[in-house]
């Protein structure tokens, strides 16, 4: 696993094993903020940043925990790092763009409980990637997440105008779209080797 070329890691995390559509990570924001294109792209941006930072930190923490022989602290220290990064991003966005801050609403602090980010930290440790590979893995996962979010937001915006039965409206419709997208993404299997 450690010998994987960087592009393969990127394509793998981004398309073949897309975090949202193949691993089901980060479904909550995926369903929550994907109704509008603009918020979807910005949410993608915020998640990308948090993923990169937390992936870097997780790499360091893992090395430290191995050194002091305390693997049972892994989960607790990962989540602590992610929570503080999210806090930082939240303060930054609140200062720089209050409009975006309001648009993202409750989903901004909820990035902490976005499984995609903790999942990323855990997967990269399990796979035993080195530092550069970790960065590419995080980048791939983040691009994949943003891609899925933007794709579904586009579809949902179109469907605003369509006449669908009352029962289907909302989450059920979004889930069906996600199912179809997930099927489409299965077509990428085997791309990165």
């Amino acid at each position: 696993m450690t010998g994987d070329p960087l592009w393969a890691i990127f394509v793998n995390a981004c398309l073949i094993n897309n975090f949202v559509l193949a691993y089901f990570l980060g479904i909550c924001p995926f369903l929550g903020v994907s109704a509008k294109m603009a918020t979807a792209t910005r949410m993608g941006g915020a998640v990308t940043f948090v993923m990169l930072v937390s992936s870097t930190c997780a790499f360091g923490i893992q090395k430290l925990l191995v050194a002091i022989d305390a693997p049972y602290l892994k989960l607790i220290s990962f989540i602590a790092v992610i929570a503080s990064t999210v806090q930082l991003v939240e303060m930054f966005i609140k200062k720089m763009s209050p409009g975006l801050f309001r648009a993202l609403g409750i989903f901004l602090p909820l990035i902490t409980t976005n499984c995609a980010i903790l999942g990323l930290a855990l997967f990269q440790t399990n796979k035993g990637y080195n530092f550069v590979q970790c960065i590419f893995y995080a980048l791939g996962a983040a691009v994949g997440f943003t891609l899925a979010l933007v794709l579904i937001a586009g579809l949902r915006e179109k469907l605003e105008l369509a006449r669908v039965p009352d029962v289907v409206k909302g989450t059920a419709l979004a889930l069906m779209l996600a199912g179809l997208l997930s099927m489409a993404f299965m077509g990428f299997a085997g791309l990165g080797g």
Partner: protein
Amino acid sequence: MSQASGQKSSTNEFIKGLWKENPVFVQVLGMCPVLAVTNTARNALAMGLATLFVLLMSNIVVSALRRFIPKQVRIATFILVIATFVTVVDYLIMAISLELHKALGAFISLIVVNCLILGRAEAFASKNGMGRSIMDGLGMGIGFVFALLCLGAVREILGTGELFGLQLFHDGFQDWVVMILPSGGFFTLAGWLLLFNWMKKRKEGAR
């Protein structure tokens, strides 16, 4: 509050999680494990029970500590409490069945970020006494197990023609392979949500 009404309301806390406020079908919380590990009924059950345990324990601890946790750092504290219990469950499952631990993989660790658990800590346990928090945790947890089983059973029956590893159909049954793949998870959940929506609409219509 009198003894009798206290008794009644704690029963309500228990019942509401099972059906009326079912965490998966009504509140749409904790989706990631719901979709990811429900490709067989056995995995779904194990995941549900693990979540139930963590939810119950975190509700107990958060409710016991609710007067000592400063408001500003409450979310971080809740997460740390939850992460502790998840670590316990992780090692517990590894000790009980290594095979199951492999099947569930990183998703056991990911119970930490199940919105349901943090949601109950924030919305209920941090404001209510221990007795009621236990009932709430049990109700929500069992509702979650129920939902996971619903999905896991449908996906396993359609995807492999088996339930808990027992063959249900004649050999001529053609497996719907798509049901055990990721997209099948989305479709099954959408189907259940449709059913629940339809029942809700029909009930409103009847009124």
